[in-house]
Each structure stands twice: as C-alpha cells, then as structure tokens.
C-alpha cells in the first residue's frame, strides 16, 4: 500500500470517569478479548499498511504493555514496523502534545523519513472495520486534498460530542462544525483521515509556526474552503467508545448476532495480543444467558445480558445482570451486580451488592484477594 499509518492514542476523556484513571482510552477492553486500538491496528494491517506509528501520551502504561510486541498484528517486518511515539524533551521542545496537530508536529521526523506518498490518520477509540485502501481509492478519484471518513448517525444527545459535516452533491465538505451546541448535521466525522504526506507536513508546519495545535479546528475547519476536503461515507458498523454510556453500549452491541458475525465471521479478522488462557469453565450452578464470556473465566453463578472479560472469577450464587466485568475480576460468593461496569483487577467481597440506578455505576474495589 502507498500509505503509512498514524494512530492518535494519546487521549483521555473526563466522560470516561474512573475508567480512564488508569489507562488511555485506546487501551479500553472491548468485546471480551480485544482492546479498542486493536480495531485500528488490525484495519491498518488488513489494508496492507506496513509502517504504523501509535502516538501515546496519557497514561500509556497498559497501552504500552499491549503493544509490547508488534507480531500480533503482523507488523515488525523488515519493511515497516510498529512505532510507539511518546512526547520527549528536545532542544526545540519541552511541551507535552498540546493538541492533535502538535502531536503530529512533534513527530514530524516520522513523516519526513517515510517515502510512501499518503498517510492514513486514525484514532484509537473507534470500533469498526474498514479497508483504508478503499478510502485512498476514493481520495484519489475525487482528487481530494483531505478525505474525512464520516458516518451518518441517528439523532441523539450523543451526537454533540462529534464533529458534524455537511457536504455538496459530490461529497465535498462545505460545513464542518466541531462539537456544536446545536445539532448542525447527523453526518459525523469518525476521526479517520487520508491525506498526501507532503501536504500534511506542510499544513502542520504552518500550523506550528502560528502556534496552532489542533488538527480539526486549525486545519480541517480553517482550510475547508481553500482545500478540497471530501467525506467518505462509512456504511458499516462504527462506534466511538469515549464516554461511559458509549463504552457500555458498544460492548452490549456484541451480544447481537449480526454484530458478532460482521466482526468475527465475515471478511478480515481483528487481531489482538495473545494471552494463552485456558477455555472458559462452567461449574455446576453456572447459568449464563445472552452473555459473552472470555477465555480464562470460571463461572459458578448466574450471568445475564453481560460481557465478562478475560480471566474473571464469578463465585457461587452470584447474580450478574446487564453489566460489564473487565479483566481479572474476582467476585466473591452471593454477590449481586446490576447495571455496573466493574474495573479490571477488582476484588468484590462475598455477599456484596452493587447496582447502577439511572446510569451505569463504575465499580472499583481494590480489596485484598485470597486465592487458594
């Protein structure tokens, strides 16, 4: 492929509440066995992009751990590879990434040292499958300067957290409003862009000269009448997980057969780091209904309409309903958990009860764990 990839995975979001206390959003576990960034990385790999940079900043420990080898996504070749780029102190710079454009600017050597003519920019918080070479084909066909992947969403309060676009009949973006108070359009930007590498270098160098740091505000919106910016419409599943509700809903989407079939039984695969966990185990007393259970789990109680991530233990007579149990959670006997998201490595004491009322309650319990 004639492109390199850059994944912006530095982000934190207040709207993730406690869930992003300890990890970047891109490292959020999704669908039982994956992390959010696996989708962008797998798309890159399946689109035959060989050289990919991941830009991290906020709380990158679990993300770095996840990326400790590039072989799971089939990078790590003589040609190309996976580059994890973090902010560093240099003679010219002593700042953290001040925005998306600044993050690119601080790593401009990566862009300058490559020879591929195009760049695919993606974010680490989208759950979707997309062959970026189709977007590139469209980009070339439209003779676009920048192509923005867009998705038509149903009207909802949620829509206010996205950039909203309006296009002309040809697909050229005429209006672009970032997170407007009043809904401008239901066509939102997915934060995935294709752009010629030399043009990107030029635009971010100019932005840096003017102390402008944001790719959307300072480049896309400012240049929309000057440059040919096109929208590529994504017709298939796409979800952004960067609020608690969106994160919850995205995981629950995987309880639908058509969503699982689309991601895991049709077309390209999604890859992730291999954990070598044993099969999930169901002991007498286990009763599981409409749920996903990840490998390494041991289930003794009842689980309904829930997603249970890797290596969790559910004790006798527990009742887990409408909840997300993240990795390596221990739930003691007779506990009841409803409408909750239980943070990784939590230890829930026996006979506890947690219930989210109006919203999904986030449970973080770092109790001492005694295991035989």
């Amino acid at each position, binding site marked *: 492929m004639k492109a390199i990839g850059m994944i912006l995975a530095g982000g934190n979001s207040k709207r993730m509440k406690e869930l992003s206390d300890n990890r970047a959003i891109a490292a959020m576990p999704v669908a039982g066995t994956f992390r959010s960034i696996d989708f962008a990385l797998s798309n890159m790999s399946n689109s035959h992009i060989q050289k990919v940079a991941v830009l991290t900043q906020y709380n990158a420990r679990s993300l770095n751990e996840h990326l400790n080898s590039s072989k799971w996504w089939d990078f790590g070749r003589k040609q190309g590879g996976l580059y994890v780029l973090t902010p560093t102190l240099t003679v010219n710079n002593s700042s953290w990434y001040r925005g998306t454009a600044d993050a690119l600017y601080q790593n401009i050597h990566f862009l300058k040292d490559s020879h591929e003519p195009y760049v695919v920019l993606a974010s680490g918080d989208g759950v979707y499958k997309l062959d970026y070479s189709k977007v590139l084909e469209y980009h070339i066909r439209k003779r676009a300067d920048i192509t923005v992947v867009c998705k038509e969403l149903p009207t909802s309060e949620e829509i206010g957290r996205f950039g909203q676009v309006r296009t002309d009949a040809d697909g050229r973006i005429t209006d672009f409003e970032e997170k407007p108070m009043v809904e401008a359009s239901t066509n939102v930007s997915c934060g995935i862009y294709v752009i010629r590498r030399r043009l990107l270098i030029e635009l971010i160098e100019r932005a840096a000269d003017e102390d402008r740091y944001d790719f959307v505000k300072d480049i896309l919106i400012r240049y929309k009448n000057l440059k040919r910016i096109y929208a590529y419409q994504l017709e298939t599943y796409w979800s952004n997980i960067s609020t608690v509700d969106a994160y919850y809903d995205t995981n629950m989407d995987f309880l639908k057969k058509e969503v699982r079939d689309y991601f895991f039984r049709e077309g390209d695969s999604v890859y992730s780091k291999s954990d*070598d966990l044993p099969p999930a185990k169901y002991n007498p007393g286990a009763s599981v209904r409409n749920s996903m259970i990840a490998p390494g789990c041991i289930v003794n109680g009842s689980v309904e309409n829930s997603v249970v*991530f890797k290596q969790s233990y559910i004790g006798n007579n527990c009742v887990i309903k409408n909840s997300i149990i993240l990795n390596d959670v221990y739930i003691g006997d007779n506990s009841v958990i409803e409408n909750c998201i239980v943070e990784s490595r939590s230890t829930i004491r026996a006979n506890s009860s947690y219930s989210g009322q109006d919203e999904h309650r986030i449970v973080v319990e770092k109790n001492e764990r005694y295991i035989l």
Partner: protein
Amino acid sequence: MKKEMIAMLLAGGQGSRLGVLTAEVAKPAVSFGGKYRIIDFPLSNCINSGVDTVGVLTQYQPLRLNTHIGIGIPWDLDRNYGGVTILSPYEQSQNSDWYTGTANAIYQNIRYIDSYNPEYVLILGGDHIYKMDYEVMLDFHKSNNADVTMAAMPVPLEEASRFGILITDETGRIVDFEEKPKNPRSNLASMGIYIFNWSVLREALLTNKEIPHLDFGMHVIPYCHQRGDRVFCYEYNGYWKDVGTLGSYWEANMELIDIVPVFNLYEDYWKIYTKSDTLPAQYISADAVTERCIIGDGAEIYGKLYNCVVGPGVVVEEGVEIHDSIIMEGCVIKKGSSLNKTILAGNSVVGENCKIGVGEYAESLYNKKVYCFDLVTVAEGSVIPDNVTIGKNVAISGVTTPEDYPDGKLVSGGYIIKGGEE
C-alpha cells in the same frame, strides 16, 4: 556456542488406537481440552523448564503438526540460536530409511544434536498430558552423577503389568527392569522420558545402529545398563495421563471439567501455550445451558450442553442437546440434534435433527481393539446428514450422505469410512 541440554521430542507415531481421530493427523497433533493439541504439553513444559532448543521428530502425517508448530512463536521457541526444528526423515547418499524405531530416529539426527554440542539430551514423547519441570529432573541427574535418568511414576500394582517397570535400589539407581511383567516386582512405571549424557547416548547409538527398529526401552537402555552405566530412576508424582486409547482420551478430557480438576489449566505459573487465532469471547444465548463445561474462544452456544469439552469457534444451534461429549474446533451442530458420548473431531458438521449415541452398546464391526467403548467417534472434517439416527460405539469418517444410512440409521457397532483421497 554450547547448549547445556536440548530436547528431542518424538512425534512421529500414528497412535492407531485413537482410530479415525488419527486417520489424517499424527497423535501429537490431536486436539485436547478445548483449545490445545497434545504436543502443546511437552512443548510448554520445555520452555517453562528453560529448555529452548527442541528437535521435533515427525514421520506419520506431519502436515497438521508442521503448521501447528510453525517457527515456534506460541511457545517462544522462535530463537536466534536454538528454538524449535522439525526433523523429518530424509534421503541420504546411502541407507536412506524411515525412522524405524525411537532410538533410530535419534541416531539419524546425530548431526542436529552435535551442532548444539550439548552436555545432556532430553528424550520426550509427544503423546502425554502432564506438567513437569525438566530442570528439576536434570538437577537430580547431575546430583547422582548419572549417565542416564529415566522418569517413572508409581502406578497401582495391579495395573503395573501394562507398563515397563523399573526396579531400583535404595539410592534410586536402577538394578533391573521388566517390560510388561506378569508378576511385577515394583510399581514404578517408565514414562518414556529420559535424560542422557550426550556422550553416553551418542556412543550407544553408534554401537547399536545395526539393530533393526532400534528402540530406547528395548535396546538402548538395556545396553547402557548391562555396560554398567549409572542409570537412575527419577520418581514423578504429579498428574500424567496417557491418552493412547479412545477411552482414556475421553476420560482425560472429561477430568478437566471437574470443579477443581486434578490437572489444573487455570494456574498462572505453569502456562500451557498453543497456537490460536485471535477470537472474541464466546457467546452463550438466552436459551442455552452450559452445565459442567469448558468452552473455547469464539464459540456460539444456542443449545444445551451438559458435561462437554468444546473447542474454539464451535457453533451449537437452537434445540441441540449434548451430553458427555468432546466437540473439537470449528464444528457445527445444527438445529434439533442430540449427541451423547460423542467425540467430534475438528471442523465436522452434524445436520439437523440427528440422534447420535442412542440405543444399546454393541461390539464394533470395524475394529474391536480400537472401538471398545460406548463412544461415537467422528473423524476430522466429516459431515453427517440431516435426520439420521446413530447408535453407540460407532466410527464415522468423511462426508456421509443419506444413502450411507439405510432407513436413516447406523446401528451400534457400525461404521462408515469414506476414503480421504479426492
């Protein structure tokens, strides 16, 4: 550079008593415990014991084994120096031959071993389920100043006549051995795991190379013993399971679903590694039952499962009921079928409304020695058409059609074997 100890893993055997399960794959490549293959256990033991150089000797139907092992990535055996090497029989300028015996296979690969110039060589079989720290065994070997150390485990005395039995003195040195004795003098059964000083083994192989079907238990060990080498017995008391018959294979799988299994896969410190695709979590539907089961990644369960070991990617549709069965990777069981005590090898398809494993047990019309359990055994990639009824102790292999089932039935003890050749 020198390696202290390298392992030679004998994985060439057919395992003919596993019947149609090994019709097209070598026994070490047969699936086990939901997501593993039998060879994963000795390979994981090697890397967990710090043995990072393993020669895998293949001969019978090696394709599945070769693709499974690849360059050894799942076991961390992809090394710059050492790692895993597949050693198949090869043509030589004279005396080209298949591997005619266990020791003959090692004899034909002396050059491989010499290239690492090891002090010790560990000889392993590829067909047992166990966790063992070979480093502890090596320490035992060194502390006894031994030439050969054989691992052995105590078995009930009444079963001892099925094994090679070791008779030791009070220091653990072997004074005599008996192959399948009528009146055993000891209950220490050889596990087919040996550590040799390479110089000792090399000399023994060269001296005895002319013996036909050169075998460790029959020739090499007796030769070393008679010569006065220090041959010691390392007693092992953990879980060790031979899965050489359909009955023991089924039993070993079923033991994994006990509440606290004797052989525990859920411990962190001695992981068993395997090659696996990245799969999502498994889905259990609102009407499904999964009672006393272990289920692999990516499975989709809409039916009812009781006492089952289910592999990755299996689909069990609505209205299906399965008892006491092993369903290996990628199988599909369509609506309304019921299975009882069935071993369904990988990527097989069972049609709608089949009844499998019903009626009374009957002696096998195909092979009485292999098929003497009340299990239905279905080979890899088989297809069973809709609406058929199948008895107990049955063997099925290949794509079967309704014409293969007179009146839609296959009686107990019956068989349908369709050729694998296209």
